[in-house]
């Protein structure tokens, strides 16, 4: 689906990303983790053509990303960020309808199919009941689901998420990942998400990329690569990893140096 071959990005000596290679297959559910400034957002910007790599090549469905027009790309790949501030008071349904832009001609009006798609993604993200409310009146958790709905309205094959749950409480965070898991399972949607919540990422993602100072440190399943040593070296935290009693996924127990009781 997406292949990166020896991709580097940066200015002169200071590379933000250096020599990144991976192959993300269709239907994958991948996570990118790494400390602040490790290049996670830069990698997503490269993959979504906001910026172009200085070295290396990125391919989408075996075609170089360079060859895609922005509109064509938006019909295959959608993006959800951590927050979008709208400068005007749009209705939720208007916002989700914007997701149909990659499939709509300039002069064309929206078709019945556009509205069908909008309704179906509103239902999938459980935002159908807010469709007639203003986007800025929603809570952060509701708004992120609307943005996810807009991304789904693009009918993408792959969806990139840059800290989609950064401003959400745990309940909403889990909710977003549960929706993603369902989409991944039912619609074979390929997912690549950046998050700082290591426990959640380990719980939901099947493959992780660990970035450290612009370099790819590890790629593999959470159970394989999440180790006490890795967390100490990359994230500079003391911890112990033990399986989550509910899901058996690796869970991180923090040792913060506070005295035990």
């Amino acid at each position, binding site marked *: 689906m997406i292949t990166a071959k020896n991709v580097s990005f940066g200015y002169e000596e200071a590379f933000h990303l250096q020599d990144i290679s991976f192959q993300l297959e269709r239907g994958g559910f991948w996570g990118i983790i790494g400390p602040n400034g490790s290049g996670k957002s830069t990698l997503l910007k490269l993959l*979504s*053509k*906001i910026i172009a790599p200085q070295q290396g090549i990125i391919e989408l469905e075996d075609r170089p990303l360079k060859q895609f*027009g*922005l*509109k*064509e*790309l*938006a*019909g295959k790949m*959608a*993006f959800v*960020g951590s927050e*979008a*501030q*709208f*400068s*005007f*008071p*749009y*209705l939720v349904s*208007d*916002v989700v309808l*914007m*997701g149909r*832009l*990659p499939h*709509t001609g*300039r*002069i064309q009006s929206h078709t019945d199919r556009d509205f069908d798609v909008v309704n179906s993604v509103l239902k999938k993200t459980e935002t159908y009941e807010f469709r007639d409310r203003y986007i800025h009146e929603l809570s952060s958790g509701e708004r992120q689901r609307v943005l996810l709905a807009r991304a789904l309205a*693009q009918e993408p094959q792959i969806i990139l998420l840059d800290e989609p749950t950064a401003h959400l409480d745990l309940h909403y965070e889990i909710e977003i990942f549960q929706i993603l898991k369902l989409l991944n399972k039912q619609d074979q949607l390929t997912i690549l998400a950046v998050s700082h919540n290591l426990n959640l990422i380990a719980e939901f993602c099947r493959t992780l990329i660990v970035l450290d100072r612009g370099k790819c440190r590890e790629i593999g399943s959470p159970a394989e690569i999440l180790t006490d040593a890795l967390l100490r070296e990359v994230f500079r935290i003391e911890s112990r990893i033990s399986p989550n009693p509910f899901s058996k996924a690796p869970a991180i127990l923090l040792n913060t140096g506070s005295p035990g009781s």
Partner: protein
Amino acid sequence: MSTFIRRLLILVFLLIGTSLASLWIGEIKGWNTAVILHIRLPRVLLGIVVGTALATAGAVYQGLLRNPLADPYILGTSSAGTFGALVATILNYYFAYTLYIFSIGASFLSVLLVYRIATTRGRTPIQTLILAGVVSSTFFSALVLLLFTLFRRESFSVLFFMLGSLSTAGSGWPILVSALLSLIGVLIAVIYARDLDAMSGGEEDAIHLGINVERTKQILFFSSSLLVGSSVALAGSIGFVGLIIPHILRLLIGPSHRQLIIGSAVGGAFFLVLMDLLARTLFSPVEVPVGVFTSLCGAPFFIFLLKRKQKELVF
């Protein structure tokens, strides 16, 4: 019938009604074919063209800069266009072409300049935008005054250029040229309206929706310069139409830009024809430049919006 169409039709009826009233009302009472056809009709038509152009340009600027306080007058585009028009006049190339080329060109360059000054890292904060606009507007107004002082022209009054007026409507064909240029500007704006919707969540957000943001910005800055330039060339810089009208229309028909732009085009025409009717009849026989009236309405409106905006943004 959708709410949008219904409200648009109401605006169209208001426009037609005001225009007919403007043809009828005036110092010379009763039916006077010469006055109605050769004096009032061109003036009403010019009002329609200029009002449409300024309100549409305002809606486009607000969308492009993601800033509800943008307007051709506040950003200094109108002053720059006025300066261009004046240069063309003084150079004595008083052919319509040069007039339009100079006023549209100056509008385009000035709005790009203001945009460059006010934008850092893809963001255009309200404060820097207004400051850059004030500087540009003051600068070009100073140039206009300078040219007036150096090249005294009996046929033009400073007031006309600085405050804007529809009183020089004169012969029909420059109005026709302005109308055609404005029509092109409005059409481009309508065609690119959905890009503005996509850009309302930020420029990167719009790229993710497949919008070629840089190209859209260039095209829309150009189309709005067509609108501003072709209107100031004939009417000077009339203030605040581009601020007030898109705002009211956003309340009436919502923020989606295709409807907003079409609505603003009609609403702006109605507003300016009405203001001009007031400007020429309220203190009759003395006639006030219409820009005085629009600024008297617009400035308090601007303050109101600014105060409301302050609550959302940290200054």
